[in-house]
């Protein structure tokens, strides 16, 4: 009964999951038998040093890196048992991903970058253009709708990327160092923005960072070291 209840509540359940790389005779466990439950609407931070395995874990949850062992369940379904097209659909409709680096397509304007995920989610009936403008307004870039990434600062690009991650109304936003390389003020703006999205839309947010102060802004804080996950 308890198990069933837990299944009903946990949006994401990572069970004894590992990512193993074999380089010659060496076996590297980038993520080592990690288990994790995240409920809908939680705001989770994972802190850890570079190379601790936090990006690898986030990528496995985001459906862009297959695990070597264990299970990654989303609403009770192991995403790596899905067919390739179903996994793409999971990434398109359920997950918004904020990358560690500038991830905008250089040939597209800010608005076009926001619209890109809608092509893949086939949400053709929704008025994507208007929504993209609203989201750009929400991240304070209304006047940059037609700007190309090269015309935006690092912080502005990151805000566009955050707005893009929300375009398909995901239930889960994954942020890989979402404020990396940004100044303190922009960092606070972005964390505030993510906090608002989490509160207003009940969107689950998991972000990884090496900044303990930033990690403290989350309601649930986890630490990763040597591929193992610990609660703080």
């Amino acid at each position: 009964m308890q198990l069933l209840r837990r299944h009903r509540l946990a949006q994401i359940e990572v069970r004894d999951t590992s990512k193993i790389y074999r380089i010659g005779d060496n076996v590297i466990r980038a993520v080592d038998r990690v288990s994790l439950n995240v409920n809908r609407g939680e705001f989770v931070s994972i802190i850890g040093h570079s190379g601790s395995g936090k990006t690898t874990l986030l990528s496995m949850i985001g459906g862009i890196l297959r695990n070597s062992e264990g299970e990654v369940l989303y609403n009770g379904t192991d995403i790596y048992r899905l067919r390739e097209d179903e996994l793409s659909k999971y990434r398109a409709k359920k997950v918004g991903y904020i990358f560690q680096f500038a991830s905008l397509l250089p040939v597209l304007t800010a608005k076009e970058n926001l619209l890109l995920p809608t092509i893949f989610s086939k949400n053709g009936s929704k008025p994507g253009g208007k929504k993209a403008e609203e989201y750009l307004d929400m991240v304070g870039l209304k006047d940059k709708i037609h700007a190309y990434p090269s015309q935006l600062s690092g912080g502005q690009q990151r805000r566009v990327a955050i707005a893009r991650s929300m375009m398909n109304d995901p239930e889960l936003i994954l942020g890989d160092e979402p404020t990396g390389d940004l100044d303190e003020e922009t960092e606070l703006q972005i964390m505030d923005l993510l906090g608002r999205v989490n509160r207003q839309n009940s969107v689950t947010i998991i972000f990884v960072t090496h900044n303990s102060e930033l990690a403290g802004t989350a309601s649930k804080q986890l630490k990763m070291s040597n591929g193992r996950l610990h609660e703080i």
Partner: protein
Amino acid sequence: MKYGLLHVAVKNLKRKAFRTAVLVVSIGLLVSILVFGASFLLSVSSTLEKAVNRLGADVLVVPTGARDYAEEVLLETKTKAFYMDRGIIDRVKNVEGVQDITYQTYMTTVFGLCCDIPPATVVSFNHDTDFIVNAWLDKSIGRKLKKNEAIIGFEAYDNLGLYDVSSSLLFGVKFDLVGVLDKTGTGLDNAIFMSDENIDEVISRGKAGLKPDTISVIFVKVKNGYDPLQVSRNIEGAIIEVDTIERNDMGKKIITSLTDIKNIFLITIILAFLLSAFLAWTVFSAIVNERSREVGIMKAMGARNSDIVIMFTLEILILGFLGSVLGILFGTYLSLSLSNFFSLLKDMAASLSITERVGIGLLGIVAGSGICMIGAFSSIIRLKNLEPFAVIKEA
């Protein structure tokens, strides 16, 4: 443009405008060679077929060894004189399967010696038996030629510069030039025509190099139900002094000589094809390296493998289409411009039907787009199979 993969593809092509232009021009050159070659070969075949049809004979009878000369006069623009005994006409008439015959005698003008026009073929024909020139006369002047009258072939009018010339001295005899024939598409467009009532007088002046009672060629129509090839063999079997050319064999010499040109075209097209494919491969290999991270990001955002394939295929098809259109335009321009250098292609513009032109255009588009697809195939497969995490992490 509606926002979608096509929009992204177009923007990606615009990103590297110079590289896109180089690839488009390269495909354009390949397609232009293809279009020019196809137009050339089709046009030659078409021109020959039309010329043979215009002559309206099933079998040609010429002096032994004069087959090539006859084809050169009738299908090309060369001036040749070749003769056989007039008595052969009656012998041909008696061959089984022969229905109608007519004959022509060809003479060559020499400026200043016999005639006051540059070198040209003068055709003497018989009004009573003729089934070739009479029809042309009906269309242009609506009557037969009288004695001491001549009419100019369509091309000869220009080539010989007979503008505003009302009479001419041919082989020592003064002829009134009564008009210009319509275009026939045969080599005889370069000739001047007179009726054979004038032959005796021409011979008597001694300036045509023509002996009495000689003719150049006999045109034969075969009876219904008879095979022209068989009749042709019958004639050769019955008359040792003649060779025959069956309707379907007319122009074969030209087509044979065109085979070399065709092979050169083919080799050039194959080389251009390989070069273009190599260029497309190089360009798209570079694109894989440049854009693998973007593809990784798109996959992380939910792009299916099919989305990636479609996006790059669209880029390829746009490149191929632009290159093809450029090639079709340039190839057609080249065909029309260079056609002046080939006598058989003077009518290239008119000799190709709409269907043939559309066919050549489609061939160009298929070749242009196909070459891009072949060149880019391995790159697309590599992009499709990229693991998003691996390429994002590498970046």
